[in-house]
């Protein structure tokens, strides 16, 4: 019984030891900068901010440009491909993949910087 327990515990650690070779996720922060709160606060609370803001915007029509998803993307989309989801190191993908927290925002929302999207549309 004890042996089983110990071997289970060990097998859980193997994965962590393996992962030790990896460092923190590499994130393309796009234009970067800070306009809402400091990075650590954002890491802990961005999901609550988004959840609250989406109800305010959609259901009440209270649109706060600074904390809108579009505005996040405007800064944080990669300067290379204007996207927050296109590559493994894109702003949203990098951390979410690392933490294995699946997000479905971008099934509906565009992950492209609006200014770039408008350019693309007008070019068509």
């Amino acid at each position: 019984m004890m042996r089983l327990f110990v071997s289970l515990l060990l097998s859980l650690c193997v994965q962590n030891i393996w992962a030790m070779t990896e460092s923190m996720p590499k994130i393309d922060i796009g234009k970067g900068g800070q306009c809402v709160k400091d990075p650590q606060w954002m890491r802990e609370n961005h999901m609550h901010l988004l959840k609250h803001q989406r109800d305010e915007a959609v259901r009440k029509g209270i649109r706060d440009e600074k904390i809108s998803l579009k505005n996040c993307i405007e800064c944080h989309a990669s300067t290379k491909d204007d996207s927050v989801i296109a590559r493994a190191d894109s702003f949203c993908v990098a951390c979410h993949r690392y933490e294995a927290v699946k997000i479905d925002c971008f099934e509906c929302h565009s992950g492209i910087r609006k200014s770039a999207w408008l350019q693309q549309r007008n070019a068509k």
Partner: protein
Amino acid sequence: MSDFNLQRRSFLKTSLGAAAVAIAPGMLLFSTAQGKSEGASSKVRWGMLIDTAQCKPGCNDCVTACNKENGLSGGTSATDSQWIRKIEIKDISSGRELSLPMMCQHCENPPCVDVCPTTASFKRDDGIVLVDKHRCIGCRYCMMACPYKARSFVHEPLSDQNPDVPRGKGTVESCTLCVHRIDQGKGPACAEACPNKAILFGNLNDPQSEIAIKVRSVASVQVRADLRLNPGVRYQGI
């Protein structure tokens, strides 16, 4: 334990901790956020008055404009989304023919809102009936309930959405009265695009607005008025 493992653990711990006490972080955020709009008010009721006499059969400008504005494919197969469509109607007894655009009627008593299990289908304070895609589970009950066949279901994965108009697979959608434009002080794309100015958009609650004056003076009807849904879209000349 290594440095990085500690980092990861604290990341997870603080995230979990934050989630556990996340009752009203938004209240704090409200005070820090600046540059936000007032929000929809029930003092306003957005509506449209469509003059069918000005609507030409064969003209699809309103449909094309809506498709372009909202990122719709423009396809007309049975599974393609159509937020607005032109209907050709012919009075069976008299033979009179006319053409008109049909879209979500933004009812005051919307059946779609009554039946939605998740409150995804809702009426905003200013009268616009919308689908909150954050809550929509894609049950399509609202599509069964709508008397005007206003709603479409997204049957396949979408990409390249308009950043102002989020749309996704598995949810239901319909005409939003271009709410993203209204909130910027503009009007719906269809009204702007009509070459004959057949679609008049405005605030029905403002007695001095162009639409309110016109609705008071010319004869107009609501489609399926017998259902007593009090739609915000009215038609002249039916």
